[in-house]
């Protein structure tokens, strides 16, 4: 019934992020776009590790007699989440500095480097 | 067991009904403040009852099986409930204050003494 709907969600999320990066003109919006792609990929990794009828791979007071979902993607996603927050922090502080120097955060106007 | 189950079902039903009413109120009411009334009160109240259901049931299981995990379940659910009780009204207060200061005025208001007072 659920089919491959999680994967479709992943594709839509990444697509929305790329759309923002390609067509929208605000630097902070671009950071949101990167965040969106990030969330899509995190969901992708976790979805890969899901096993139907499984429980979390933690033995502390777990319900008896059930399979466990795959733990590796969870470890990878943990890494990826922290990297994501680091990325957005850096991007946003750079956007603030650009505003400080240029007085604008529009992509069209903040382009002194060209040619 | 029978009485317990009935109590449980009653609690869960109350919880669901009030949460549902909160969500519907969020849709039906005309402005921010009245929506806050619906969402804050009703969802908090509903959540109290669902959490209470879980706590009661886990105490019953603890009594039945003497397994320490049900104690943990009850305690942690209680903590979650307390967090919800503390944070929800404060959040509502913050939103309503911000809304009023950012210029969103209540609709169909018969009286607005705050606007008259004009804090800062």
């Amino acid at each position, binding site marked *: 019934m659920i089919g491959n709907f999680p994967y479709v969600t992943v594709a839509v999320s990444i697509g929305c992020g790329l759309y923002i990066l390609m067509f929208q003109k605000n630097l902070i919006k671009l950071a949101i776009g990167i965040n969106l792609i990030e969330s899509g990929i995190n969901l992708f990794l976790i979805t890969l590790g899901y096993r139907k009828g499984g429980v979390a791979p933690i033995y502390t007071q777990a319900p008896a007699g059930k399979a466990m979902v795959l733990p590796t993607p969870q470890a990878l996603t943990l890494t990826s989440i922290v990297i994501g927050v680091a990325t957005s922090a850096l991007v946003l502080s750079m956007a603030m500095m650009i505003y400080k120097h240029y007085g604008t955060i529009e992509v069209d106007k903040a382009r002194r480097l060209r040619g | 067991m029978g009485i317990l189950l009935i109590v449980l079902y009653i609690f869960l039903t109350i919880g669901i009904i009030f949460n549902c009413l909160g969500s519907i109120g969020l849709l039906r009411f005309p*402005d921010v403040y009245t929506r806050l009334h619906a969402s804050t009160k009703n969802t908090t*109240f509903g959540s109290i009852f669902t959490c209470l259901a879980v706590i009661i049931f886990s105490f019953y299981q603890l009594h039945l099986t003497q397994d320490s995990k049900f104690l943990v379940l009850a305690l*942690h659910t209680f903590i979650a409930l307390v967090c919800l009780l503390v944070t929800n009204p404060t959040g509502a*207060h913050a939103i309503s204050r911000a809304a009023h200061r950012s210029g969103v005025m*209540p609709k*169909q208001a018969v009286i607005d*003494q705050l606007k008259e007072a004009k804090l800062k």
Partner: protein
Amino acid sequence: MIDFFITFILSLIAYLFLTASAGEIAGLWSIFEVVLGIVLSVIVSFMATRVLFQKRSYRMLNPARWIIFLIYLIGPFFWAMIKANIDVAYRVITGKINPGIVKISPELKTDLGITLLANSITLTPGTLSVDIDEETNDLYIHWINVTTLKPTTADICGTFPQWVRRIAE
């Protein structure tokens, strides 16, 4: 110093509450857990003492106040909450509202008291605390069903101010 100690005890209680499970001490905690909890509580006390005790008031240390607080929570507060929810449910279904923002002066002195009152008001019949006057502790309240244009404190929050005064002042 006493601030530090109180924070320490409170955080230790919170920690032990969180970690209660099987173990040697009282059947709930292992020794290692408790030792670790003490160490962590000391660290937390270093971080949180200055936040928790900005004004040196130890009024809340009296156990009698805690009991009154519990009674208040279970008794009048919970009853008012039930009333509030049925009231709001009625309004959600029928859509009858008559809102307005009114001002009341509960004349509470302490910060904790006014906080408690404001949060109680938010969760009880037809009222929502919108803003607070920082000097005089007057509350501005959004009232969903305005009956009088000049309400008294009792109109809006019933007996709450008395309870709060008993608890926090």
